């Protein structure tokens, strides 16, 4: 694919890339930087994208690869681990959500999951990639995707089956 096409496709994928980056970093500032680097790299590597594949999946693989390099670099510099994200760090959520404590509670709980679980939750629950697609993006066996999801479900089970809409009705 030409770099021009990649640049045309990137804007639509930015929210997905941003959320995935957040699931990896757990930090808003780092997320913004990681998204920027991902976009730069995607444009630079445009020729490697095959249009038969998922563009978003390809961008997320790039994002993950850059993040792994960052982690290796941090390990070699013996940097401190990242703090867990406080959901109030995230600038204004989408309309209607900022006053929805239930949604905030879910986001907070997701952000306290280990990063390995957060990323599968983002890919499978939120972005609705299949288990096998998530396995390819994260470069892990599909069984690992399943086991991380099992662990995430256990941690998030109190929210099972109750959507924001239902919760709002319940609160009325």
């Amino acid at each position, binding site marked *: 694919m*030409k*770099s*021009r096409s990649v*640049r*045309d496709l*990137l*804007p639509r994928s*930015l*929210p997905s890339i*941003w*959320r995935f980056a*957040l699931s990896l970093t757990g930090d*808003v500032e780092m997320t*913004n*930087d*990681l*998204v*920027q*680097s991902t*976009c*730069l*790299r995607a*444009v*630079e590597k*445009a*020729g490697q994208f095959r249009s038969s594949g998922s563009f978003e999946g390809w961008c997320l693989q790039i994002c993950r690869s*850059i993040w792994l*390099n*960052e982690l*290796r*670099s941090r390990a070699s510099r013996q940097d401190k681990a990242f703090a867990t994200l406080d959901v109030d760090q*995230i*600038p*204004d*959520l*989408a*309309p209607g959500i900022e006053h929805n404590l239930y*949604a*905030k509670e*879910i*986001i907070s709980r*997701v952000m306290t999951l280990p990063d390995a679980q957060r990323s599968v*939750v*983002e890919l*499978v*629950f*939120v972005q*609705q990639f*299949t*288990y096998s697609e998530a396995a390819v993006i994260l470069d892990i066996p*599909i069984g690992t995707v399943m086991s991380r999801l099992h662990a*995430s*479900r256990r941690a*998030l*089970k109190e*929210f*099972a*089956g109750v959507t*924001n*809409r239902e919760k709002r009705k319940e609160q009325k």
Partner: protein
Amino acid sequence: MTYSDQELLAFLNGDLDGKRAAEIEQTMRVDRDLESRVMALDPVASPVREAMIALPGRHILKDLEKSAFVSDVSAGKSRQWLKLAAVLVLGAVMGGSAMWIGRPATEDWRGRVAQYQSLYVADTVRLTTATSDVLKRQIDAASERLGRPLEISSLEAPEALRLARVQVLGLDDAPLIQIVYQDGNGTPFALCVTTAKQPAEGDKTSSEMLHGLATTAWQDGSYRFIFVGGNDLSMTGQVAAQLKALL
């Protein structure tokens, strides 16, 4: 093999016995319909999706959209997003085959390289630094594309700089090798090498500020070089002289 919703829910909740759970997992690998069914039944997925889809928030999304679609980026925005805006807007305006710097332009090649390099910030290098094994492979690939050997020992010679990564770009249908460095303060630098249409006559080294960056360029036979970064022309001149002697 068929499974009831109840059984699949038990699987999702981790309540199914190990053997049966393993069987479902195995079947899902080849049966996309079953995989879709399991995903649709997942009781946790929907509430989580509904909450998480609110991200990124309006403030961030506004920056993302501005970066993506245009142009009118106000002065108060962060430097990071200005850089991203520049990448996407340049792309929309210029198009081209390999990179935007690959498109023929009226500006001298040194200016085009400096313009590209001006998009780099400390984090661009920090987040894309290659491991030593990857770096070696990058150098091998770059040497092959360029048709001229590049030795890692020579590239690592500048003492004040850390070699971060090497990549193959394009400039007017010729390969352009970008060798990225970072100094102790995080400032990005790059040595770029490309081929020349005409072999050089004599030693012409020139230093000047281009797009806000110090640059020193020279030509050696059929290859053109430029060292770019920071704002100190004496520094780029010194590093260029060192690299020129080694490469």
